[in-house]
């Protein structure tokens, strides 16, 4: 059970308080209807899935309830940083 630093609570909390919410920084297009099928597919389904540095979202669902972003190494599972939703990509 990994420990995750919640940037809102500002402390490390155990994984079972959190829900992973997939890759970060995939913004919903402002005008979905103007998107091509390919662009829409990319938004819905295409994922980086990197071996190494990965931007992902977590929700402290059984804590403060906030979604936030994280940079984690997918080979070591170690977090580089976590930061609040809306903050620029790190």
């Amino acid at each position, binding site marked *: 059970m990994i420990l995750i630093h919640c940037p809102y609570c500002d402390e490390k909390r155990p994984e079972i308080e959190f829900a992973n919410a997939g890759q970060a920084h995939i913004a919903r297009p402002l005008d979905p*209807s103007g998107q091509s099928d390919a662009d829409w597919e990319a938004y*819905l389904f295409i994922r980086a899935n990197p071996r190494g540095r990965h931007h992902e979202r977590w929700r402290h669902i059984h804590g403060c309830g906030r979604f936030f972003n994280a940079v984690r190494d997918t080979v070591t599972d170690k977090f580089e940083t976590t930061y609040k939703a809306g903050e620029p990509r790190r």
Partner: protein
Amino acid sequence: MSGFRLKTGGRIDRSQPVMFSFDGKSYQGFAGDTLASALLANGVMLFGRSFKYHRPRGLVAAGSEEPNALISVNRGPGRFTPNLRATGIEIHNGLNAFSQNRWPSLAMDFGAINDRLGMFFPAGFYNKTFMWPRSFWDKVYEPAIRKMAGLGDAPTTEDPDVYASTYAHCDLLIIGAGPAGIDAALGSMDSNKRIILIDEQDELGGGALADPALWPWLERSIKALTNAPNVTILTRTTAFGYYHDNFIGAVQRLTDHLPEIEDRPREKLWRIRAGEVVLAQGAIERPIVFDGNDTPGVMLSSAAKVYAHRYGVAVGKAPALMASHDSGWHDIFALAKAGIRICAIIDVRESVDSALMHEADRLGITVYLNHGVVGVHGRHGVSSVDICDYADQRVRRVDADALLMAGGWTPSVHLWSHSKGSLKWRDDLGAYVPDQPNENVHCVGGCSGDWDYGTGAVIDMLPTPKDQSRIKAFVDFQNDVTAKDITLAVREGFRSIEHIKRYTTNGMATDQGKTSNLNGLQIASSALNKPVPDIGLTSFRPPYTPQTFGALAGHAKGALFQPTRTTNIDSWAQAHGAVFELVAQWRRARYFPKPNEDMHAAVNRECVAVRSSLGIFDASTLGKIEVVGPDAAEFLNRMYTNPWKALEPGRCRYGLLLREDGFITDDGVSARLAPDRFHLTTTTGGAARVLNMMEDYLQTEWPDLDVWLTSTTEQYAVIALQGPNARKVLEPLVQGIDLSPEAFPHMAIREGTICGINTRLFRVSFTGELGFEINVPTAYGRAVWEQLMAQGAQYDITPYGTEAMHVLRAEKGFIIVGQDTDGTVTPFDAGLDWAVGKKKPDFVGKRSMARPDIIAPGRKQLVGLLTDDPNLVLEEGAQIVADPNQPIPMTMIGHVTSSYWSETLGRSIAMALVAGGHDRTGDTLHIPMPGKTHTAKVTGTVFYDPEGARLHV
């Protein structure tokens, strides 16, 4: 040959005799004995049979690395445990132990025929045969192979014991309480760190327990640690796994060593989060590989020392030592000091430290340098040993009755490896030792390769003049892997150690290779002519030693396995004979049978009651979300398919929720209470998912909206009062709400009180009848329900369950998300076009509905089905075809999603998803079932009161 109890010595309590039995025969030991030491003291050398060849086997070790002495213990009904190591079983009065994998008896085992035929069962033999004739595999070969497999018998009845679990936190976790671990604890004891010290044995001390000179120090140290308020000591506790971020799993054994269990938990799972971890797990002595090294009476020299000095047991009257390492010499000197006559020291090395030679000489022990064992005589025990002088290849016989092996040491890097710390190879030790850590952890003592056992030669196996292909020199005792199995694997092209391990099963026995991995690596290294680091290392996986399923499950057993959520009204339903069903985590009343009623009779009666007079239904499990804030309507408008901004306070609307991929995920009727306040409902199973999805959009896509979501599912008990007489029952109970149809139309909400309790009263209907859903604070749900039952008695008010609810809604063509939709259904497929806001520029899922396949013709669409035989109720999930006469595989065009007997209509009704279904109205379709093909006509989905006249009264 046989072991015996020494007159003095050991840590056993000779004043406390303990009676136990093994294979039905009674023995006596002392408090402090393990089953291994007690049997050894009684002269028992034969402990079990090996896995594949059923060879007789004795003790190899004294600790948890023991590969051979696997025992079943029976503590009475449900308390049978196979595969326990005799070295870890503390004896108590009444202990009832059995050997395994033998028939009819341990001494006389028919399975030993495998040993005679062993030449036909080399590694991987099963890949090469049992293929012809082909039909024999299922019926003959495989059953026979399976019958031979396995060690102990399986338990056959449910375990009555309970298991406990807990989390724990500390600043410093020390795993292993030998001298190194105790020193680490003593060194940090005076800091204000919270320390947990864990050891798998029944007392602290590790290797010091076999060294009487250290006992005074040990006693002082234990006393100091026990008195330190910041130190928690856990004995009989195995740290079995090292997980992310210094999270360690450990199991504490609480009752197996006690004669009486009482009602205490058998084991306890400790889930420990440590700031820093010190691994002090020591090192495991390595056996030596030579012909006959598995004969009972051949064991590790360190084990013989433990038996002598910890348990006061001699392993034989005249043991000899086969060494490649100094440590064995020290062990044998210790045996000599305990009064055991030593037969000989045999060392493969040409020379050793002169101090060792002098000590041997002083103790009068014959020494053979540059010699090796090439044969062991005796089947159930050592009778003598053949040794070879490597200088001239001459073989001589030595009359030893036990043979001790000292092949060097393997640091216990298991947990270090679990933590993903790296390892480095040390040629001088012939072993991997910890290198770079991956967590806040370090190793001390033996497990770091740091020991004072002296030095040794690193060998793969003892040279022998015999034909290598004709001898049996074991590497993995339990799995019967020999040196030639490993060379065979190499010969057949298996080059990586993982391949060799899997092909030969070396290291895959219940001891997980603790004594065999390094010897296997050395042999493979020689065979491949490559240095060990080039062939890799098999990775260590949790657990360190096998751990009980029940302990890992912890308290999660029976009713505690998972919560069963119940409503406030559930207790009433239970008291009134309801039959329940499980829906998501909830328990819901399915129907309320009267005496002698089956489900169909009860459901028919419940349905008719709702249509003709009055029914009452517990709808509390519906998900509820309070949406509050100035932007509440804007938010719902973006989430749901239909428009919400113009909904007036006091009115309700059906909401349809899609995933972003355009498929229906949830629905429910929601109400606007105030300009900035909505009361949403969701499906029972969808409540948490919908709230999370809405929070996701709100927090991350539209954080500018001033609106907040609160789950109110459990704030309200919800009672659905449905039927033509619903209003009449409510009227006398409700205050502050005008219930007249004009003041309170269908799809409206009013706030007031009922029986003096605040209520949000919905006028909504999932049955097609005049209906209300009464939301009251949960604690009062049952009380209000009972008031309604009393008030409704004059109308024969009838409680109904989920089954009747399903029938009633199906008669009206209302869908159930998850039953009539399955995650691949769009609003158009479901015939819910009317619920999609055509003018809305966007909502969640809208764009996906414009994808090519979603707008293509031929999609499966929801239709009604009426069977030609009105008495036939189709099976839900039955498949539909257009042409019943086609061959298999048939082209299926859809399936039945809902199907019921409608007592109201006097016939069966069904809904189905059918390809192009909306254009097939009136068509006859076919439903092929085993033995008969049914026919049905496609209809609309509304079977009852299509005008909705009954709602608007």
